[in-house]
Every structure is written in C-alpha cells, then in structure tokens.
C-alpha cells in the first residue's frame, strides 16, 4: 500500500498532463486538472512522511550491466518532495488565476504538470538512470514553458538558450553516472555511495566523477559559466519563473550534490572547485542584480546569487546549511516572483522606471513583497536570516575571508532588493504613478500563503533541521558574526532605499556590472558563433567534395565515350573478321567437297575433348560472368534510363 502511494506521487501530475493533452483540451477549467495533480501528490506524500521506503525494478539488462529504476523515500527525498509539492500546489493555483486570459492553456498546464512529475521523479529517484531521465525531463518542461509565448522572439530564443546551456551541463552528469555504471555495473545510487564510503574507488576517480556531477549542477543551477540562460528565461510566464526558475528546477543542482554528498566529502579537491565557482558566481550575480531595471531580471540574478550561497555551504562541507537555505530560498523567492506577477498584471509593467508609489494602491501585495524581501535580505526573524546564519557558521569555520564573502553577499542582497521594493512601492523623484489594485482573491490568497511561508520557514526549521536530515550537527555561531550579518543586511537595505529615494532606480553601485553582463553574454554566444563559422567552412569542403564527384562522373562518361568508340571499332573489326571467316568457310566448304571430311571429323572430335576438359573450369567462373553482366546491365540500364529521360 505504501509502495503504491510512493509510486503515485510522481504519477499523479503525469496523469494530469496526459489528461489535459488527451481529453481536457476543451475544458475551461483545465488549470484545475494540474492543481488536482499536485494536490494528490501532496496528499499521497503526507501519510508517508517519516518512513523509509524503496521500490525498484530492472529497466534493462545490457551485457553485464544492470540498469535499475526505482523510487526511494528517505529523509532527504521526503524533505525535497514536500517542498516541491507544496510550492507546486500553491503556484499552480496562482497560475489558474494568472493565466485565465491566455490562449494555449492546455499546453501550459500540461507542460507544468509534466514538469512537476519530472521534478518529483528527480528527487525521489534511487537510480542514476531515472534521475538523469527526470533531469532531462525538467529541462524539456522548462524549454516548453519558457517558450510558451512561442511567437515572441525573446521567448523562443530564451527557450533554446536554456535547453542548450543546461544540456551542456547535463552531459557532465551523463558522463558522471556512466562512469559510476562502469565501476559498479549498476545504476543504483546507494550501491555507488556504499562503494565510495568503503574506499573501494580510487581518490582520483572520485574527484573526476564529483567534478562531472558538479558540471551537471552548474548547468541546472545556472552557475558560472553556464549562467546566461536563467535571466533570459524570464521571458516565460511568471508562474513558471516562480516555480521552476527559482524554487525547484534550479535547486536540482543543489539537490544532486546533497544526494551525492558522500562522494563530494570524499573528494576535497572537487569541493574546493565547488567553493570557488559558487563564490565567484554569487558575487558576480549579486552585482548584476544591482543594475537591472526589470524586476524579474533582478530576481533572476538574485536567484543565481542565492544558489551560489547554497553551493558555498556545500563547498565548505555544510550540506545541512545548504538544504536549509534551499528551503528558505524556495519560499521567499517564489513569493517575490508571484508578487512580481501581480504587479505586472495590475500595473501593466515590471520595469522599475515605470512603477512607483504602489504601496497605497496594492497594500497587501506590498506587505507580501516586503516580508519576502526582508527574508531575502537575511533580516531577522524572517527565513533568510536563519538559513544564512547556518551557512555563516560553516563558513566561519573555514576562515574569516569566507565568512566575509557571505557578509558581502548579504549586504548586496539588501541593496538590490530594497532598490526594487522602494522603486515599486514607495515615492521617488519624477516617479510615474500607474493605476493598480491588489489582485483577486485566488491570486492574493496564494500570495499570502506563500508570504507566510517566506516569513516562517526559517524560524520553523531552525534548530529542527538537524533532526530531519541525516547530515550531522550544525556548528554554533559566534554573536560577532551574527551581529555582522544583521548589520550588513540593515546597511544594504538602507543604502538601496536611500539611493532610490534620492536618485530614482538608477544602478545602485554605478554601471560597471553592466560590463560584466556584456562579457558574460558575449562569452556564452562565442562557442555558438564558432560552431556556425566551422559549419560554414565545412560547407565549403562539402562543395569541394561535390565538385570532385562531378569530375569523377565526367571521367566515367569520358571513359564510356572511349569504350563506345572502342566498341564501334571492335564492331568493324568483328565484321571484317566475320567476312574473312565466311570466306574461309566457303573455302573450307570447297575443300570439304573435295573429300577432306575425314580430317574435319577428327578436328571436331579434338574440339569436343578439349571442350569437355574445360567445362568445369568454365562453369566455375560462370557465376562471376553472370554477376559481372548483372552489374553492367544494371549500370547500362541506369544510364540508359537517365539518358532517355
């Protein structure tokens, strides 16, 4: 029974997707099918919480390799599955209201349900194979959803970019699990991790495998250098950004490292790479967030930066802090996105320069945004404070430099989010004042629930998460660091607010991060350009080959011409020969008539004997003759038909 419930968790949304595609295309409330799918998943999950379960079957046996697929429920997977189903349910409900006026709703909600199913399969999978398939599945869903407004150029290009860049990382993941398959001869993750912890695999191999898996995480979680797709992905509908491009799919990279943490713990060199890549990404992205004027792009760069913080925690060996921040970030970032969607819908824009003074017109929205923004800025007592506290404790163990890096990130987050909040909701010089009001009850309701999560998740989990996840104890944190973090948060918030209040929504720290963005985009596009340049060269090669073949063709025709002349010549000679033979024959006839018939009979007998001896030899080659004739008949008939036509 429990096994059945476990299996049903990812199956419900999949059934919802199929139902929408096959039967419910014409239903007006097609969105509720998707809502029902994620609600059923959540209902199936709730009675299983706290249990350990596994179902597994052999998918394929190829040679000595056993490829298994299966689902497992352990502490980590139920933690993730709960997060995914809860946010999926809320965002699907929000989307029903948000997408009410759109065409193509069946396509939207089918893709959304397919995404939820893939994401749940990803976090519940017990085998590399299913994990990879689900991993690619969420990539496909992301492509379909970013490209939902398929007529728009920015949407379709963003869809391509997202799929291509994440797939580049996916291939690292593919190589990684293929390597594990070659070592273990099975795709079962637990078998692999057992072998890692018993030291059965050499250290160098572990480091390479860990780096390959990290490459997959870099692509999915938009870390440098595969970052550019995430801000571009904001061309998709806002519920998609809230669910996929902030709370769940992009966190899959962090989840992968959590799931494989024993591997990373055994490969310190790889952890070091994780630390430096994510540190660089986090600062880079936070700086870029300070110059954007599109609210969704601010949130996108913020997401990259926050994911970087999670990897930073992993990089110093703190999976618990990373998981904590993953949950906290999922709650407050999806809240920020749904408020961004409400603003976009009701005020007609999400450009900071075209908004302002909305606090009075959309008071509830402003409240929700404010709570989530403070959570993002790490301000107590909201979620981000608690989880960043946990990360800071881990970083402080590595050294003051690492801890200061996080303090800087908290300061920057305060700046960019207060800049956005003040520009939208408060007053600033030369501010336009668009008309707007709070959204309807369904949308507002989901926003309020998400806002509550954003406020409370950190407080709920603080001190309890050690008991939920098997990653050991969390270190304590000195009051000095905690004070520094709160001060940085306050300073950032104050600085960002003051800048907008006096100067309007100009780049908060000057324009230099824009250059960074330009370099990143140029660097991302460069391999694509190189491929096109190579392709153009190859096209020349192809045409050269083509000309060569044409020459060969001409040569064949020339040869055919020569043989034609030879044929004619042979023909004449044959005729001459025939004439001579005839002459000879008549001469012979005359001789015969004169009574040499005996001699001729003897000749005939001789020929018969020789011929008899030659016969087997001839029949041996007979087949080759017929074969040759067959070939030439084919050739000549082709040429004949071609010439005739």
């Amino acid at each position, binding site marked *: 029974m429990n096994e059945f419930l476990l299996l049903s968790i990812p199956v419900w949304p999949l059934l919802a997707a199929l139902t929408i595609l096959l039967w419910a295309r014409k239903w007006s409330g097609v969105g509720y099918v998707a809502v029902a799918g994620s609600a059923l998943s959540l209902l199936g999950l709730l009675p299983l919480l706290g249990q350990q379960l596994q179902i597994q079957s052999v998918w394929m046996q190829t040679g000595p390799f056993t490829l298994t697929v299966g689902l497992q429920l352990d502490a980590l997977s139920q933690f993730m599955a709960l997060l995914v189903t809860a946010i999926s349910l809320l965002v699907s409900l929000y989307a029903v209201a948000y997408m009410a006026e759109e065409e193509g709703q069946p396509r939207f909600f089918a893709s959304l349900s397919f995404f939820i199913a893939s994401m749940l399969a990803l976090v519940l999978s017990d085998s590399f194979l299913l994990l990879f398939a689900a991993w690619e599945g969420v990539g496909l869903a992301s492509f379909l959803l970013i490209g939902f407004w398929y007529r728009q150029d920015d949407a379709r290009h963003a869809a391509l970019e997202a799929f291509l860049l994440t797939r580049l990382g996916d291939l690292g993941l593919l190589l990684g699990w293929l390597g594990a398959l070659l070592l273990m001869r099975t795709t079962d993750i637990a078998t692999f991790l057992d072998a890692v912890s018993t030291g059965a695999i050499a250290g160098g191999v572990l480091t390479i495998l860990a780096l390959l898996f990290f490459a997959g995480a870099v692509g999915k979680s938009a870390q440098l250098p595969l970052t550019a797709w995430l801000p571009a992905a904001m061309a998709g509908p806002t519920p998609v950004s809230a669910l996929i491009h902030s709370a769940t799919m992009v966190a899959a990279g962090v989840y992968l490292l959590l799931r494989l943490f024993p591997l990373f713990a055994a490969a310190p060199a790889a952890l070091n790479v994780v630390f430096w890549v994510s540190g660089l990404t986090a600062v880079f992205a936070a700086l870029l967030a300070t110059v954007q004027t599109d609210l969704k792009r601010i949130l996108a760069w913020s997401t990259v930066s926050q994911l970087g913080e999670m990897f930073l925690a992993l990089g110093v060996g703190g999976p618990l802090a990373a998981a904590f921040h993953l949950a906290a970030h999922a709650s407050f970032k999806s809240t920020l996105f749904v408020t961004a969607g409400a603003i976009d819908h009701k005020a007609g824009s999400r450009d900071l320069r075209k908004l302002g003074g909305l606090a009075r017109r959309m008071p509830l929205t402003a409240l929700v945004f404010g709570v989530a923004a403070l959570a993002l800025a790490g301000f107590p007592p909201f979620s981000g404070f608690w989880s960043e506290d946990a990360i800071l404790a881990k970083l402080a163990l590595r050294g003051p430099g690492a801890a200061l890096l996080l303090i800087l990130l908290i300061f920057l987050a305060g700046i960019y989010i207060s800049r956005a909040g003040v520009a939208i909701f408060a007053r600033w010089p030369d501010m336009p004042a668009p008309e707007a009001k709070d959204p309807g009850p369904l949308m507002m309701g989901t926003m309020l629930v998400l806002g509550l999560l954003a406020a409370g998740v950190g407080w709920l989990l603080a001190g309890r998460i050690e008991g939920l996840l098997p990653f050991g104890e969390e270190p304590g944190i000195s009051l000095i660091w905690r004070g520094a973090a709160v001060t940085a948060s306050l300073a950032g918030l104050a600085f960002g607010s003051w800048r907008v209040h006096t100067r309007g929504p100009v780049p908060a720290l000057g324009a230099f991060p824009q250059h960074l963005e330009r370099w990143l985009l140029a660097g991302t596009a460069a391999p694509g350009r190189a491929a096109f340049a190579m392709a153009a060269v190859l096209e020349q090669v*192809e045409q050269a080959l083509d000309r060569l073949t044409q020459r060969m063709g001409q040569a064949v025709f020339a040869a055919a011409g020569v043989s034609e002349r030879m044929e004619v010549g042979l023909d004449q000679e044959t005729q001459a020969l025939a004439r001579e033979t005839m002459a000879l024959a008549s001469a012979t006839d005359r001789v015969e008539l004169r009574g040499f018939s005996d001699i001729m009979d003897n000749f005939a007998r001789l020929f018969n004997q020789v011929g008899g001896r030659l016969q087997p030899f001839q029949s041996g080659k007979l087949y080759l003759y017929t074969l040759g004739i067959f*070939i030439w008949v084919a050739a000549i008939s082709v040429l004949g*038909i071609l010439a005739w036509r």
Partner: protein
Amino acid sequence: MLTIEIFLPLLTGLIVLALPRSRPTAIRWTALGGAFLTLLIAIVLWIGFDPGGAALQWRLTVPWIPSIGASYDVAVNGISLSLIALTALLATLVMVYVLPERKQVKEHAFLFLLMEMGLFGLFAAQDLLLFYLFFEIALVPMYFIIGIWGHERRLYAAIKFFIYTRVGSLAMLLAFLALYLGMAPHTFSLPAIIAAQPLADQPLTAGLVLLGLLVGFGVKLPMVPLHNWLPDAHVEAPTEGSVMLAGVQLKMGAYGLVALMLPLLPQTTRKYGWVLLIIALISIIYGALAALAQGDLKRMVAYTSVNHMGYVLLGVAVAALTTDVGIRQLALNGATLQMISHGLLTGGLFFMVGILQSATGTRQMARFGGLLGRIPVYSGLFALLVFGSLGLPGLSGFVAEFQVFGATLSLSPWAAALALLGVIITTGLFLRVLITVLMGEAPADMPAVIDLNRRQLTALVPLAVASLVIGIAPGLILPVIDAATRLLFQGG
C-alpha cells in the same frame, strides 16, 4: 518462414506487374497488402525467436552453386531480426504514405518491393555471395527511384549515388573473394569463415580485406569522407525513397560492419580499431557541423544521419578495441539499437519534411515560422521526433546512445567527450529548427499549410510509438539484440 518473408515481396511485385496499368488503386493496395503481410511474418519470426537459444535461428540451407561452395543459406540472429522487423515496418508505412501517388505506379511499387526483398535477403544471408547478390538487389531499385521519381536534380543525384555505391560494392566483392580464396575448401559460407578465421596469419591480406569491407560498408553507412553522395541522394529522392534510404539502406552498411566485418576479422579490426575510432569521431562532429550549415530541412536531416550513424561506427570501433567482453556487448547493443532508433526517428523526420514539401513546394527553413499555431498535430509529432533525435530520455535515441557513450568512456574519456560535443551541436541545430519552424511569427510569404490527414498519421504514428516504446521499455527489444552480441562476439 524466413524464406517466405524474403520472397513474399518478389511475389507481390510479380502480382503487381500482372495487374492492369489502368487500375492504380488496386496496384497500390496490393503492394500495401504484400508489405503488411511481410510485417506480420516479421512479427511471427520475432515471437518464434528464442533469445536464450542458438545464435542463428530460422535457418534454411539449400545448395545453390555447389561447385564453388556457394549455397542459399539464410538465418537470423538478434541483430538481423530486428533490422528485418524495421524494414518490414518502414516498407509498410511507405506503402501507406504513397497510396495517392500516381506517377508510374506499377514500376514504383515493383521497385520498392524488389528493394524490400533485397533488404530482407541481405540481413538474413549467411553466405557471402548470397549477401552480395541481395546487396545489389537492394541497391539497384534505388537508382531508379531517385532517377525517375526524384526532384529537380535527380539525374545528377542518381549518377552520384551510382558511382559511390558501385565503388563500394566492388571493394566489398573483392574482399569477399579474398576471404573465399583463403578458405580451403573454397566456400562463401559466413559461419564457416568466421569459425575458420582464414586470414588470421596473413596480416597484409587481412588488412586489405578490412579496407575493402570498410570502404564497401563505409560508403553505405556513410562515414566521412565517403558520405558525399548522401545529401544529394536524400534531397533529390522522393520522400518515400528518402525514408527507405535513411531508414534501412544506411543500415546495410551498419549491419555489415557489426555482423560481417567484426566477426570475420576480429584481430585485424582491433589492430586498426583506432582508425575506426578517429573516423567515427570525425563523422560525428563533421555530420553535426555540416547539418548546422544547412538551410534546407531535408539536407539538414540527411547530414544528421552522418552524425547518427557515426555513433554506430563509434560503437563498432569501441567493440573492436576493448578487451572486456561486457564492454563490447554494451557497445554493440548500443550500436544496433542506434540503427533501429535512427530508422524510426530519421525515417519519421523524412516523412515530416516530405509532407511539408509536398504541401508547400519548399523545404527552406527560413520560409516557415509559427507552425505550432497553424498545424498543432504536425508540430507536436515533429517536435517529438526531433527530441528523440537529439537523444532525450524516454525515446529510443537515448537508450542507444548512452550505451555507446558508456562503452566509449571505458576506453577513453576524451573520445567520449568528443562524441558528446557532437550531441551538443545536434541539440543546438535541432532546437534551432524547432524555434524557427514551429515557433516565431510566420513569414509574410509563407505558403499555406494543412495539418496531417489520416493517411499521413497512419504512416507517422507507428514510428513515434515504436520509438517511445523502445525508449520507455527497452526490455522488450533488447534481450533479442543482447543474445546476438553475447553469442557472436564471445572471443577476446
């Protein structure tokens, strides 16, 4: 049963010839009926095949030219059986697709049936001379199909196809003769030659024979640099011709590499395995890049075939080089499944492009846009086939490719990384097609398009379903292939 399968198309073809020219519908339906019967027989053969049994099953041996040791000897192993099933499926779907075509119906139907016979025969032949004979029977109709029913530059394409394949066939024939002469007593029997390994102690001759086989099969595969006939032949061939050409005829080369070259010359292939590996990697990347440069959809799909068949060659190269029996099986299972998968997906894509061309008269990517809004069913199927071709899990291409990549990884991580570079390029180019043709705004001068009709759906849906079934439940087909690779290549 197998012999009935082989000669049934010929019988149907003769019936077609006897039918009056004035009744094209009857001719079309007769041909379709014959092809469908071969599909049913293929299913019977499949059900009767025991994966746990002997390597060769359904065997029939009849003396043919005993004086030279050639016999009519047919049988199937798991590899040839799956290819026969693929051939029967594609031939049936092609017959469905061409139902309304009215140009020289009789000759058209007869040539396709003749080709089907040749394909069945060569996949089943256990005698090199018989193999060669069927190889030619499968090829010759194709010249005519391109030359008579093709598009504007059909003459050029047919002659080019003719020259390339002729050179290939001659090289193959010479290699066969060398093997024949190396046997005492002389025989063309494939199992006998494999068992005896006549050229094991003549490295020079063995090398030359390998070269002959490689050229012969490499032209058909095709591998770079013997591939140049392919884009022209595909582009100029009529849709149904392209489907058979890409779907099955390329597998003549692939099958030859896996089922003939590898077992006939295991040591020599290993000796030159690195050459195969390099050619495979070049084919993979070259095919992908060349496809990227194309604005003509059909030409683009044709070049992606070079890329996809490069994975087959990669599997063969790894199988030749590795000393681990398990890895060899992994590589060859992947290569064989790639043949099937490519037949389904690329066959489907050629149908797709052909439907677009016959509706609009153009194949230029730039002439289309926003098809998703106008012809959603067409767009959905097109996207499915495209995602299958770029190796998305859940469709057959992934199951094939990850096995080849895994085997390659065990040999050399760098080779695997280079092969994956090809995957990234094909991902990019296929996505480019999707966002250009299906998404975006329709250009102002875009020709009118209509969605798939029932006949076109009948031709396409089985391919998509087969690819999905293999992708989701490969356990249904893999044991048959696995049996062949286990029994054929046990030796180190």
